[in-house]
């Protein structure tokens, strides 16, 4: 397959696999206790209510068992006492790349972030371990009243909006890892779009883990006021260390009446990262929340983006692509809670298993009684490339009442031998044919990504397919 890989490919798993030595000014040390939480609060200058919130969350985290009665036992391999929970060179992100420390800047330049910003973004935040090194929003967008800052700055400078929604979509008690994030969160974005403002170009965040034995716990809160529209994209990489790294984010979206939020993730963590993320949106009347979620990297990802459809005619959508190569488990899915009449949700999940990789879909669709006109449609398809690839599907569909309709279809298949033969007969190698086939399998979903991302995705898929045909 080597002849099929474009020689100048510069976006693949290995692109993130580099590491410059960096010295940190702030370091909470190894292990987690209420002292660690206090340290983070002190460094960040958190108000008392956040300090209380964090300490309470820590207790909840400690009291909750690992969810291994339904989830993989690989979770037991996370050693919380060996992790570093806060590392930074300073708390205030720079507004220009010139001000960013040289070693950090080099990292993001190599990842192509400044270039992408110039080309097609409305604003960028670049997080390096616990804090954003760089955060900027284009003047034209800021003038419309759009706020795009880090979570700490959001909390300090816009407490009236922040406090109203923070922790409301995903309560601390939601799960063990949302509790952990609530205790030690740092970084992530705070975004507010004023009523009627439609942000033309995407806002982007880039998350970089640089240090070994580190846990990154960013916290993102996006509020689109009535009639507002925004697209947010996030990317992430880390160097591949010998030891496991933890990434556990919480992302809350609030779409008020008639607002639209599109949240795009291309997750390409190195294969030593445990990626345990809680993402949920709240959609009010006539609002729309769409999660486009692509998981290619990490050792174990557990992530089920959800939408609470709280207002009449609210719409929720999850588009998900997962690729699991040997040594990887992509445990992804979607949750849709219908809480108002005439709400609709749509889930399309496609996964590809390569080598001994394992992909899992978990879904939840919930329609309580006395609602009417609710609709959900779920499709999940898995493609298995090798004989030892594995896929699981675990949806749960709860419907009450006779005025709603729900449909779920799932299928598992392998690449059609006829199709491969047909392409080979036209002169392609088996590997090329396979790659083309896989790209075809996810093509309808990839097309929903912004152009720049879909090109990247196709290349990533080609790279992952390399060597899969023996």
């Amino acid at each position: 397959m080597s002849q099929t890989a474009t020689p100048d490919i510069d976006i693949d798993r290995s692109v993130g696999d580099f590491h410059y030595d960096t010295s940190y000014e702030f370091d909470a040390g190894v292990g987690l206790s209420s002292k660690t939480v206090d340290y983070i609060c002190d460094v960040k200058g958190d108000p008392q209510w956040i300090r209380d919130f964090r300490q309470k969350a820590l207790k909840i985290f400690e009291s909750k068992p690992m969810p291994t009665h339904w989830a993989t036992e690989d979770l037991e391999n996370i050693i919380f006492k060996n992790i570093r929970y806060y590392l930074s060179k300073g708390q205030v992100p720079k507004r220009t790349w010139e001000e960013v420390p040289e070693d950090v800047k080099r990292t993001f330049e190599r990842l192509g972030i400044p270039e992408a910003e110039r080309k097609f973004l409305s604003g960028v935040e670049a997080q390096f371990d616990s804090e954003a090194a760089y955060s900027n929003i284009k003047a034209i967008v800021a003038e419309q009243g759009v706020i795009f800052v880090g979570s700490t700055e959001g909390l300090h400078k816009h407490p009236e909006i922040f406090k109203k929604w923070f922790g409301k979509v995903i309560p601390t008690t939601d799960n063990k890892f949302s509790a952990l994030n609530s205790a030690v969160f740092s970084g992530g974005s705070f975004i507010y779009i004023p009523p009627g403002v439609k942000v033309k170009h995407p806002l982007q965040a880039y998350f970089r883990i640089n240090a070994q034995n580190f846990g990154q716990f960013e916290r993102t809160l996006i509020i689109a006021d009535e009639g507002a529209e925004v697209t947010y994209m996030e990317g992430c990489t880390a160097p591949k260390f010998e030891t496991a790294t933890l990434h556990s984010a919480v992302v809350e979206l609030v779409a008020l009446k008639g607002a639209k939020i599109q949240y795009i993730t291309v997750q390409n963590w190195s294969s030593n990262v445990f990626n345990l993320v809680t993402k949920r949106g709240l959609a009010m009347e006539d609002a729309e929340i769409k999660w486009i979620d692509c998981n290619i990297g990490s050792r174990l990802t557990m992530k089920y983006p959800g939408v609470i459809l709280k207002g009449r005619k609210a719409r929720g959508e999850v588009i998900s692509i997962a690729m699991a190569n040997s040594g990887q488990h992509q445990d992804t899915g979607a949750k849709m809670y219908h809480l108002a009449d005439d709400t609709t949700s749509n889930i399309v999940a496609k996964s590809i298993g390569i080598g001994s990789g394992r992909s899992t879909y978990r879904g939840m669709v919930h329609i309580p009684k006395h609602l009417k006109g609710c609709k959900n449609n779920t499709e999940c398809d898995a493609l298995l490339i090798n004989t030892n690839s594995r896929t699981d599907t675990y949806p749960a569909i709860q419907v009450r009442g006779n005025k709603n309709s729900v449909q779920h279809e799932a299928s598992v298949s392998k690449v059609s031998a006829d199709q491969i033969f047909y392409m080979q007969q036209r002169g392609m190698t088996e590997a090329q044919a396979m790659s083309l086939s896989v790209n075809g399998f996810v093509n309808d979903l990839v097309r929903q990504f912004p152009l720049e991302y879909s090109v990247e995705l196709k290349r990533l898929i080609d790279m992952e397919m390399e060597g899969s045909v023996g």
Partner: protein
Amino acid sequence: MEVLEQPITPTTTPATPSLDSFVPPHFQGPSAWTQIQKQAWKQYQELPFPARNDEHFRFTNRAQFQFENLSHLTPVNKEAQKQILLISVENRLKKPVAGRFVFGNDQLLYRQNLSAELSAKGVLWKPFSEAVEQHPELIEKYFMAKVTTLGSEKFARLHQAYLKAGSFLYIPKNVELELPLEAFHWIAEDKEMVFPHTLIIAEANTKVEIIDFFQSIHSEIGGFSTSVCDLHAGPGSQVRYVATQLWGRETRSFQLQSIIVDKDAHSKTLNLNMGGAYSRLESKSQMIGSGSKSDMLSLTISNDKQEFDQRTFQEHIAPNTNSDLLFKNALADDSRTIFSGMIEVDVDAQKTDAYQSNRNLLLSDTADSNSMPGLEINANDVRCTHGSTTSQIDDVEMFYMRSRGVPLPVARKLFTLGFFQDVLEKINDKDLEVELLDLIDQKYSQTKSL
């Protein structure tokens, strides 16, 4: 669970007259069997009650687990016997069967033995207690040999410990039975518990159909049943098993089925679920030989506050195997259904073709359906699909029927009965189809809100 925690004590069964004037012997059992039961009782006591976060009981309303003040082996009074035999025997004279057993409160009330011809061929059709004595080697080899439950391990052991009544069927190779076999299990007393067992051993290239009926003497009667069907479909055999569940409205039941399908064999099971307050069905098919196939069918019509808790498993162990599951539920009033299904394809089971479908038709604004169709696929050259739909009576079809003058209630009923039609047709037995449709019709008609 207090009563169930009591150790088993040998019970005396009083002599009960039946149509054949048959009196079951006092059941002591050979010592090997007694050992099995003692061991099972020990395991039952050691096993924990299903934990609150047990995934096998997700969505189950545990408030339904009411097992107090139960009795076992209560004698069946004359009046009740008369009624039971009228329904299970006299009213069915038109329907020819190869053999029939009727049990009331786990006591044999009637038996129709096999014809001399079938007996001469070596077919065995015995009440379970007799088989234990006469065919210990077959019992040892097949009895709950592979019963792997889908959560109710504790109840399986309870069944094993209390087991007394049931059917034992053995068909030597190359024998085909033209007529079906029937077994009736009656609860004839309020708060009575029963443990019906069905052991089917079909050797190579055999053909048979067996039908179990689970009924209560009054529709309002309470009680508790843990039944097990242990089905072994030998190479090239064709086995059809139908369970018709018509328990009284206050009855709680656990119905555990293990279906083992060998090379080129074809098993077809159908569950008709109508009665009970809480009825749990665990049905597991294991395709152990290449070319084997299991069809798993189920029809449920629920009303009032009934809960039907269905857990299924299609395990593809050998390559080139096929399974096809279709569970259909129509829900009225405040009733609930839970469907949790799993297709598991083992690493070596390439060329598996598996399908799993759960269709729910909601007939009221408060009915509650829960569907968890699952897949665990460990081989790549497979075709596995599942689907789940939850829907309601279609307005367009209603208008079409009404425009032909069909009144709305009739149109709704036609639609609902039509919903079950594809499952009924899959059993390929016209008489049985009519009988089952009639039962569904009755239940529909008794549902006042419809």
